[in-house]
Each structure stands twice: as structure tokens, then as C-alpha cells.
């Protein structure tokens, strides 16, 4: 029973951290790559892409001698990466879309004539996708592994498979809702973007360590 509650808490927290990180990613990237809808769309897609790959990978790994400790390891690494993101965010953003010093497109000369001269924006699709993937691809992938892995540990009897999976998904999604609302309503104003990333990182690391500790306890019993 304790293990099942622990697993529900795990997917809840992982779901909350995932969406909190996604909100933070908007704040982190927008000043450098602009507030264009292309940027928002790219970041959302990167997170969904990470979840998809993570779900497949996590599911496969879960079938090879699953343990709480390994689930803890996934969360520990995802938290560590989230903690590290602020350290290299600027370098990644600069590399994906060099701003200062970059030459202007040739056609941006002086205008002329009575018809309005309108210059259109650079294509931000690839820079936004690249920056999103490099900064948040790994944490999204790792957090995507959590649900199928937790499901493997959570499900005891096949006749109740649907009930169990449904419980896990429901709880994880409620976590995501609270992570989104909490970040949007309070955390963005309470702490800066970098602290927000760090907070999520710390929570995930702590969760990972707790699972590892719980694993030891269970074995010792």
C-alpha cells in the first residue's frame, strides 16, 4: 500500500515539475528568441516530443528488472539536468540564434518610393526548435519515462490493469495542472525564472533520492 501511494505521489510530482519547467522554458527563451507564436509552438512540441520518446524508452526499460531505485535514478538525473540548465542557457541560446554582431540580411538597406517598404522577420522555427531541444529535450524525455515505469511497478493484477493505469494517469495530470497553475499564478512572481528551474531541479533530485532510500528500506525489511 505504501509503495502504491508513493508511486502515485511520484507521478504527481513529476507531472507538476514537467509543466512548471515548460512554463519556465517560455520565460527563459522569450527574451532571446522573441515572443513569436512560433517560439511557443516549438517549445510545446519539444516537451511533447520528449514525453513521447521517454514513454517508449521508459516502457522498455521497465520490463528489465524494474525497481524503485531505477525510477529514482531517472528522476535524480532529470532534476540534475534541470538544475544545470541555467548554467548553459545563455550559451545555447546564443549558439542557436546569434544576435549581436550577426550580419544583417543584405536587403535591409534603405527604403525608397511611395510604397511602404516592409521587411519580414527571420525564420525562427529552426532556432526555436533547436534551443528548446538542447535545453529541455533531456528533462522532458526523462520525465516522460516516469509514467510507464511507475505503471510497471504499480500494476499488480492484470484484471485491474485499466483501473491502475487510469489512476496513475489521472493523478499525474492533476499534478500537471497544479504545476501549471502554481507556476503561472504564484511562482513566476515569487521567484525568478532561474530560481524556478532550480526549485524544480531540487524537488526532482529530492524525489529521486527518496525513491532510492525507499528501495533500500524495502530490501532490508
Amino acid at each position, binding site marked *: 500500500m505504501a509503495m502504491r501511494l508513493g508511486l502515485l505521489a511520484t507521478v504527481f510530482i513529476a507531472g507538476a515539475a514537467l509543466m512548471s519547467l515548460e512554463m519556465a522554458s517560455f520565460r527563459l527563451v522569450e527574451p532571446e528568441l*522573441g515572443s513569436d507564436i512560433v517560439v511557443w509552438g516549438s517549445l510545446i512540441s519539444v516537451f511533447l516530443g520528449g514525453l513521447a520518446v521517454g514513454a517508449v524508452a521508459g516502457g522498455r526499460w521497465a520490463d528489465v528488472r524494474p525497481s524503485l531505485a531505477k525510477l529514482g535514478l531517472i528522476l535524480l538525473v532529470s532534476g540534475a539536468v534541470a538544475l544545470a540548465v541555467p548554467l548553459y542557457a545563455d550559451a545555447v541560446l546564443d549558439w542557436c540564434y546569434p544576435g549581436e554582431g*550577426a550580419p544583417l540580411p543584405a536587403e535591409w538597406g534603405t*527604403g525608397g518610393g*511611395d510604397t*511602404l*517598404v*516592409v521587411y519580414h522577420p527571420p525564420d525562427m522555427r529552426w532556432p526555436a526548435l533547436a534551443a528548446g531541444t538542447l535545453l529541455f529535450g533531456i528533462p522532458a524525455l526523462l520525465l516522460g519515462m516516469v509514467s510507464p515505469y511507475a505503471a510497471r511497478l504499480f500494476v499488480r493484477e492484470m484484471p485491474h490493469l485499466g483501473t491502475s493505469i487510469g489512476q496513475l494517469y489521472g493523478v499525474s495530470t492533476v499534478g500537471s495542472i497544479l504545476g501549471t497553475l502554481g507556476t503561472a499564478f504564484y511562482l513566476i512572481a515569487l521567484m*525568478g*525564472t532561474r530560481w524556478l528551474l532550480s526549485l524544480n531541479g531540487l524537488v526532482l533530485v529530492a524525489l529521486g533520492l527518496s525513491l532510492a532510500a525507499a528501495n533500500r528500506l524495502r530490501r532490508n525489511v
Partner: protein
Amino acid sequence: MNRPVILAAAAGALVAGPALFWLAAHGAAEEPAVTRYDRESKYYRIRVVDYPKEGRRCLHFARSRGIQSSMFLSDPVKLDLRYSQSMVAALALHPAPQDVLLVGLGGASLPKFIQKHFPDVRLDIVEIDPDVVRVCQDWFEFKGTPNTRVVVMDGRMYLKRSPKQYDIIMLDAYAADRIPFHLTTLEFIQLAKSRLKEGGLMASNLWEHAVNRFYHAELRTFQAAFPRTYLCKAGDSGNIIVFGSLAAEQALKEDWAARAARIAAGKDLGFDLADLVRREYEHLGTQKIAEKPLTDDMAPVDTLRREHPRHFEEAQS
């Protein structure tokens, strides 16, 4: 398009045409507004509405009743909104503006005004929404001149990319219900500052109608970035322009007003610029503001906008 759709459209037009005509003929007295354009763009819902009784055409974003821009149908160049008149004071705060950047096109009232009355000024405009540019051309009589160019881009992205140096950067990019936080921060204002020529200045249109912390935080941010800062109110409109200047000397009210009189001499601006400066000038300088400057890391503009400043709450209680 298939046949039923065409038929439905034709039927709709048959019904709607006379209905609109009837409305125009009979409903005008009660409901004087005529919507000319109403479409979703990438960023807003853009509406162009005529108010024939007042002789005005207005640009609205989203559902808000807030007016982004207003134009006299009889005189498309005349500045209608008070804040746009106060923005023009920037041209008198700088000794000889040649290169001006406007971030946020709105209904193109400032560009048209500058094109007509200050034709030698080289005007660059950055606007994020291509549909706004088109609407200005189609509905607000915005045309090109050899000294005008429009860049469709995020304002900050443009400043980062373009090495061009300006005498004046005007920022009119905050809607009452949508403030792009990355155009409010110290990092952004430092970037804009780095694109100013010696003695250049930056002016930003703010909104303090409902007393809010964002307004104070933004003033604080300007104070942190510029050695000289001023305010110019816009009557009771709720708008207020904050100016940050790199000039060596502080601008005194009388000097600013005198220069305003000089640049307005012989021109029919449609309002008294010198009088406006005399009436609305306020020195911001070292006034103490109990907010921290906004930064890229910490700029909760949406939250700050809803909160009253501390001194305001103390005064209330």
C-alpha cells in the same frame, strides 16, 4: 469551394446586405459604431471601427474597449490621442533627431505625423504583427516615404540584430491587457540604450490609470538605465510617457518647452507642443521608488499590473 457553400454564402449575402443597409440607415442613431474590419491575426483580434458621429476611426485589439489608435476621418494625420501628442515631445527633448525608431506601430498615427511634419527624420518602425501593418495601409492611410521603413519583427529581436544607431527610440508596445515582459526589463532597456547615439533618448508609453506596481517598477527600471529621466503626462487619459536620456545636461522645463516652440514654429501640428511640455513635464530623476528594476529573470509584469503599490495601500488605509 463547393456549390452548397457558394449558395449558402450568396444566400447569406442576400440577407445580410439589406440588413446592413437597414442598420446603416435606421440603426445609426442608436448604434453609431460601424465595424470596418474584424479579424484574428497571429497575435490579436484586430478591429477597425468607425464612429461617424465623432468622425473617428479607431483601432481595437481583442475584446477590450481600449483604443489602440484613433484617427480623424477628415484629417488622418492629426494626432487624436493625448499620449501620442506627449510622445512627440521626445522630438523636442533631443537637440536634432535624425534617426528615430518606433517599436509598435499601432494605428500608425505617430509615423504619419512624423512623415508629414518632420519629413527629414529617418523613421524605422518595428511591428511584430504583419496584419497590423496591412491594416494601417488599408484603413489608416499609412503610406511609404523614402525615409520610412517597417520591419516585421519582435522589437527586442530587431534591436539585437540591427547595429543601427538611433537618436530616439520610442516604445509603444504595451497593450493594457498584454505586456510583453521581455520589452520591459533592464536587459532590454540596456540593449536599446546601446543602440542610441551620443545624447540619444528613449521614450516609453506607460499606463497608470489603475494605480499599479508595474508602472512604478518600469519607472525604476528606466532610472536604473538612464542618467536622466523625465515624465510627460497625457492629460487625464491615464497614459504617461517616461523618457530616459543620455544627454550630459539635465533638461529644464523651460528649455524643453522653448525647443518645442522652435520645432513647431511654422507648422500646424494641431496642438500646442510647447504648452504641452510646460503643462505635463515632470522631472523623474532621483525620485525614490519602492520597487526593484525588472530583469529578464524576474519580471512578473502580469502579477505586478494587478497589484497596488505599497505607498498607495498605506494611503488608502
